[in-house]
């Protein structure tokens, strides 16, 4: 079946409007990666001791929890939702692990239960957001308090610290012959899994479609609610995993572990080029975003810059990154004048 007129010259469809190098180079992600490399190079050249391999070890150990949680958070934000309860789930998982271990369970079993707790926590978020239909920002502000309260309530003043050395050492061990912590193996596996899920599966295509237009996605057979539910459960599970890592790394299970981490995660994800309106972002950019914040912090601390200045720089970077995107988009619109952009306020259209 064809409607092509045999006499008419066949139209040629290029796959891409721009060559590969341009498409790769002129993206938010590329900008972040370039910035990352630049910052690393400048720091290595100018900050004493920064170039040492141990920097990489410490840096990765420090940002590992953020890296983990950033993965599902990326997917959640791409669907246009948000999960503020992740750090509280870290605390809850840490406390679960600690209490059960204290009660005599081996780490493997206690860890499994901790992850299940994370799954349940994520499912609670998912239930309120997709079944009851509440805004995720409000729901997860509530569960942020709830999960943290449970965590702190369960352990009270005590902290569980008597973890088997095998596990606490494992959490900090390096891949033999490299400065890279072995926990990065787990991360790389997870990151590949999430990247494939987001960028190379029908499920991932659905995630993007939901973020850009959930109505159009629903009309295309994307199971919007189910997808979001799964993502919140994933977010809970991975946060719980991060909680286990956190606990073992510091050898201390406490209810207030990782307090406030949610904002660091979200800041890093947004810096990595994910749009808070949903529909845009990629895993590579997010990883670069997390590492950028980590490297900046590590280099500045080594240069004896105080944490307040580091915070200012982080915040300013975040603001600059979105404002610059918005300004670039505006310039782009001025130049080619397309009238369609996502995000309020846009004039209603026919």
């Amino acid at each position, binding site marked *: 079946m064809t409607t092509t007129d045999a006499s008419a010259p066949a139209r040629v469809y290029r796959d891409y409007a721009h060559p590969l190098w341009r498409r790769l180079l002129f993206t938010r992600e590329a900008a972040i990666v370039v910035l990352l490399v630049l910052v690393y190079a400048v720091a290595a050249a100018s900050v004493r001791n920064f170039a040492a391999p141990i920097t990489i070890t410490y840096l990765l150990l420090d940002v590992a929890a953020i890296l983990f949680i950033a993965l599902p958070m990326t997917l959640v934000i791409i669907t246009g939702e948000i999960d503020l309860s992740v750090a509280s789930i870290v605390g809850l998982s840490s406390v679960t692990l600690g209490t059960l271990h204290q009660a005599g369970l081996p780490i493997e079993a206690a860890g499994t239960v901790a992850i299940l707790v994370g799954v349940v926590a994520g499912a609670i978020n998912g239930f309120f957001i997709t079944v009851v239909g509440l805004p995720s920002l409000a729901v997860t502000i*509530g569960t*942020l308090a709830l999960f943290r309260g449970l965590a702190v309530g369960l352990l009270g003043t005590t902290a569980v610290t008597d973890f088997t050395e095998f596990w606490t050492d494992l959490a900090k061990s390096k891949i033999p012959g490299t400065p890279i912590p072995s926990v990065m193996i787990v991360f790389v596996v997870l990151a590949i899994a999430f990247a494939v899920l987001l960028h190379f599966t029908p499920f991932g295509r659905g995630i993007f479609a939901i973020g850009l237009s959930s109505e159009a996605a629903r009309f295309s057979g994307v199971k919007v609610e189910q997808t979001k539910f799964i993502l919140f459960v994933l977010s809970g599970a991975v946060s719980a995993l991060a909680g286990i890592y956190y606990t073992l790394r510091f050898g201390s299970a406490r209810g207030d572990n990782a307090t406030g981490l949610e904002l660091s995660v979200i800041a890093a994800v947004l810096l990595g080029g994910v749009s808070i309106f949903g529909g845009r972002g990629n895993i590579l950019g997010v990883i670069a975003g997390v590492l950028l914040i980590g490297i900046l912090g590590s280099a500045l601390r080594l240069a004896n810059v105080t944490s307040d200045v580091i915070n200012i720089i982080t915040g300013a970077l975040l603001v600059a990154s979105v404002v610059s995107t918005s300004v670039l988009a505006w310039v782009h619109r001025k130049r080619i004048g397309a009238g369609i952009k996502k995000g309020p306020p846009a004039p209603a259209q026919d």
Partner: protein
Amino acid sequence: MSRLAHLLKARETGIALALVLVVVATTVKNPAFLFSSDGWRDLLLTPSILMLVAVGQAIVIITRNVDLSVGSVVGLSAYLTGRVFIDLPGIPWPLVFVIGLVFGGLLGLVNGALVAFAKVPALVITLGTLYVYRGINVMWTGSDRINSSDMPREFLALGTSSFLFVPWLTIIALIVLVAAGWFLRTQRAGRELYAIGSDPAAAHLYGLRVTQRVLAAFVVCGALAGLAGVLYAARYGTVNSQAGSGWELDAVGAAVIGGVAIFGGSGTVWGAAIGAYLLLTINRALPVIGVQDFWQRAVVGVLILGAIVLDRVLAVRQSRRLTEARNR
């Protein structure tokens, strides 16, 4: 519809009822919660400062935005208050209120300008300024702190003393609340804030000055956070670089509990104020009722969830009623 029926159906009524319930239950358990001069004073006083921040937050949320930097603004302005007293000895203390308001307003202006002109999401911008403002605060304060001895007695007295059994801070907060409530309900500009939050695209089509109004909402929110910072200094007497940290979620929580829809367009500052009172009163009541210190956060979380679910149920019921009314 009679006024009474109207009042009973208002979204704020349920939450106000919950507040009354908490107070009554706690008082029954321990009469001192209400019937002692400190109990009465703290009941009114403790939530007053958060209330100011929640009122500002509600105004911003009504326009379908959010301001996460309020906690940092409170901290900065509280420290500024102390610095003013130290660096400008003899300054008449009422002037610091003006300074706090203006200063907070300026910080709000930065947020508002970025949101309104650069057209970037408020959540991201104010998350960024949350870090920046707090960082500036820490940099400025260092390990310094303001002690009560640095501030004039009359000013500090504001933080605790009362007028006709109502603490001064509460009176200030109430005046602001009434003014904000009055403005939002009776002034054109106030109604336009609702319109903008209800449907920004329609507001644009309609010719409302969206940019200007959103900017103003952020300035007001910042100014109220600034005022809250001044009151913080008066109430707590000591200010270090962490004053007000974490208040952003309390303020958003208070507004949401009080029935301000997170996607804008509906809710009142009265609701947000009651939400703030409920949030902090629960916090104070739980130990009296016998809930252990550590479990209180969990109860607060359940409460927030309960409030938004209730709000949702009411909204669904109303929309069903409206649909049925249409198919009359």
